């Protein structure tokens, strides 16, 4: 009887990985607990241990294979001393076959508030963030990165890959797990004019440090009558990842956007990530930079120009349409784009506005779009109560009430702590169909 060994999921968001190395060969005896192979995920290289005992009968995925989907059989164990047959090696999928997520509407047809930055190349959001930090650290010796696992471990989500090597331990600093303390320390350093980038392993942990972010970073400029600014970036993954439960799945967009003295940015694409992070690092004010773990591995075209930077406070029209305005940010821009595609098949052309920045909010771009489409749907992953959707809808009502042909509709995460069960989790997070349904209500 043969037992199949499957490609394991080694992180909440892992869908595929690289089979880096086999540590056992065909014919070897394997005991439960033996390390049999190394697997590289987008975050780390992990060892996999055998759960069953037996002889390694066949290796189904060769060493070095990239893009091996979770749950693919990678080897077989013969349990009862059955004969070992010649290995059948499955050819690995080349990494280049990874799905490229890009705006569905051709760039030429989209309204282009952005300057044309010329040549682009496919870049993951992860690379874009790393590149942004590296470029700014080269440009300004006062910029440094600190946080948990940012240096030797290369980042819990591998965002800071290679930075320790290039910039050394003075500028890429591993901290103990002490968010309140290291955030306060970084804010203190920023008050002297240094430019720290604080990485929160996830924004959930920023709650430990919120007093320093709000009371110290956001308010000191005002309280000092303009004497003492705080040029600092707080960044890390925000919102739900996948199956990590209520304490690790929360959107802080409306929490931080509530606070005068902060800027709040939420990128979607690689270009957003790179251009806006560079702007955030250069900004003389404290900037909360909300990333998304699920987007880290997604690939988008990103300008290669070394000077590429995007202004904070400007939204981007990702898709042009005349029937309804869908306003979204971060990962929900992708959801909105998928919904827009589906709607297009029904003859409804949606205009998708990627907010990019939540504070300041680009009210003008949203209002101009609504004046054209006369309908508004907002999409956010977080809770509805006092949320970003509520803010956007109110601003539209204040500025373009007479242009609205229907009440604005909010699409948002369910107003509950996020559940763990797969079916319930799916039920709690906005899906493209929810957006389609919301649009159908008012078009």
């Amino acid at each position: 009887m043969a037992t199949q060994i499957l490609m394991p999921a080694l992180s909440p968001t892992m869908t595929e990985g690289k089979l880096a190395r086999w540590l056992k060969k065909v014919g070897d005896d394997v005991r439960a607990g033996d390390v049999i192979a190394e697997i590289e995920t987008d975050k780390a290289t992990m060892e996999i241990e055998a759960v069953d005992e037996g002889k390694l009968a066949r290796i189904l995925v060769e060493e070095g294979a990239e893009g091996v989907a979770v749950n693919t059989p990678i080897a077989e164990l013969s349990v009862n001393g059955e004969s070992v047959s010649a290995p059948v090696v499955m050819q690995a999928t080349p990494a280049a076959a990874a799905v490229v997520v890009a705006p569905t509407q051709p760039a030429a047809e989209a309204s282009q508030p952005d300057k044309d930055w010329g040549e682009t190349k496919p870049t993951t959001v992860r690379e874009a963030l790393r590149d942004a930090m590296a470029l700014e650290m080269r440009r300004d010796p006062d910029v440094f990165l600190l946080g948990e696992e940012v240096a030797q471990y290369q980042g819990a989500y591998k965002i800071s890959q290679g930075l320790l090597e290039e910039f050394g331990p003075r500028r890429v600093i591993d901290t103990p797990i002490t968010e309140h303390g290291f955030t306060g320390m970084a804010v203190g350093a920023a008050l002297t004019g240094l430019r720290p980038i604080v990485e929160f392993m996830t924004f959930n942990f920023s709650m430990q440090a919120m007093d320093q972010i709000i009371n110290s970073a956001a308010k000191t400029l005002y309280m000092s009558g303009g004497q003492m600014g705080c040029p600092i970036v707080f960044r890390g993954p925000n919102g739900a990842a996948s199956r990590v439960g209520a304490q690790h799945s929360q959107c802080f967009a409306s929490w931080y956007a509530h606070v005068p003295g902060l800027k709040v940015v939420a990128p979607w694409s690689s270009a957003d990530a790179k251009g806006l992070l560079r702007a955030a690092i250069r900004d003389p004010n404290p900037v909360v930079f909300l990333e998304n773990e699920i987007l880290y591995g997604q690939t988008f075209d990103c300008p290669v120009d070394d000077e590429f930077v995007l202004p904070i406070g400007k939204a981007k029209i990702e898709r042009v349409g005349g029937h309804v305005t869908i306003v979204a940010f971060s990962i929900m821009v992708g959801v909105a784009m998928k919904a827009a595609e589906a709607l297009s098949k029904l003859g409804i052309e949606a205009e998708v506005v990627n907010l990019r920045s939540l504070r300041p909010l680009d009210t003008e771009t949203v209002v101009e779009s609504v004046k054209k489409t006369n309908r508004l749907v907002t999409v956010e992953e977080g809770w509805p109560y006092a949320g970003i959707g509520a803010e956007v809808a109110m601003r539209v009502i204040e500025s373009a009430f007479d242009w609205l042909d229907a009440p604005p509709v909010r699409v948002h995460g369910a107003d509950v702590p996020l559940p763990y069960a797969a079916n319930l989790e799916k039920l709690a997070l906005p899906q493209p169909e929810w957006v389609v349904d919301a649009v159908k209500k008012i078009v």
Partner: protein
Amino acid sequence: MAQAAETKKRGKVKEPAVDRDQLLKAYRSMLLIRRFEEKAGQLYGMGLIGGFCHLYIGQEAVVVGMQMAIGEGDQVITSYRDHGHMLACGMEARGVMAELTGREGGYSRGKGGSMHMFSKERNFYGGHGIVGAQVSLGTGLGFSNWYRGSDRVSLTYFGEGASNQGQVFESFNLASLMKLPVVFIIENNKYGMGTSVDRASASKDLSRNGLPWGMPSLQVDGMDVLAVREAAEQAVAACRSGKGPFLLEAKTYRYRGHSMSDPARYRTREEVQQMRSQHDCIENARHRLEAMGVEEAAFKAIDDEVKAIIQDSADFAQTSPEPALSELWTDVLLPDSVVGG
């Protein structure tokens, strides 16, 4: 950490060297703070100062003694009981008093108040209203010195009440781990608002609170300006030489309530009276100076000069106009200079 415990015991063994001019200067500094605070108390009573106002009366020797041990470029940060620290840092009495009255001439142009004043020029980093928050911020000032490779030192003050805050211990760990030049100063005035230190800290000797991190420490009589200076010199020298942080506990006493609205019923009148009559830092310094032959006329000259400064600051704080209404909207964000698409 036997070594640190021994260091602590050595806190007062060395009789402080007495330099007449330095002591006179310290006497003047302490008197300036005392008279300033008394005036602030008066103006508060007159309704000219609003909100919270925490007076430093009784504790003057701590900041003045510490200040004697530092130099140009060293940073200072403290809590909300901050008027004395600002004056000791060389900030002008007028600007501080006008901030207390919420006027345009105040250090924060009236937008910060008693607890929130800063001076980049004097390396004073506030003035922080959240108990304990300044301790991690002060660690960041030390970090900045470390990052820039300068030999400057951060003096980070907090009360014994704040010493129980989690982020204080986080800061001890970070500063010790990274060997940051931070002198942590616990101003132990015995009461965190109305709760005596015995009721708040299981740790009975706060100068030992740095021991788990191997932080050297000293406990010092915070009512004796020269003893504070002596301890401060040791602490600052250790920090400056790259040995990492140092913890000082200054045992002191505040004569007034926690804030203006505190009737201080948690302690007896006799306790306060005993401290005032037997341990007052200004009287102590005066007796020493008299023994050194300083004459009445010299004290009188200092008294007159201080009085004049305080009167001027009080006048200025009442005549400086309230901030322009447009100030409501300024200083929320600095203009950014990013040129983008």
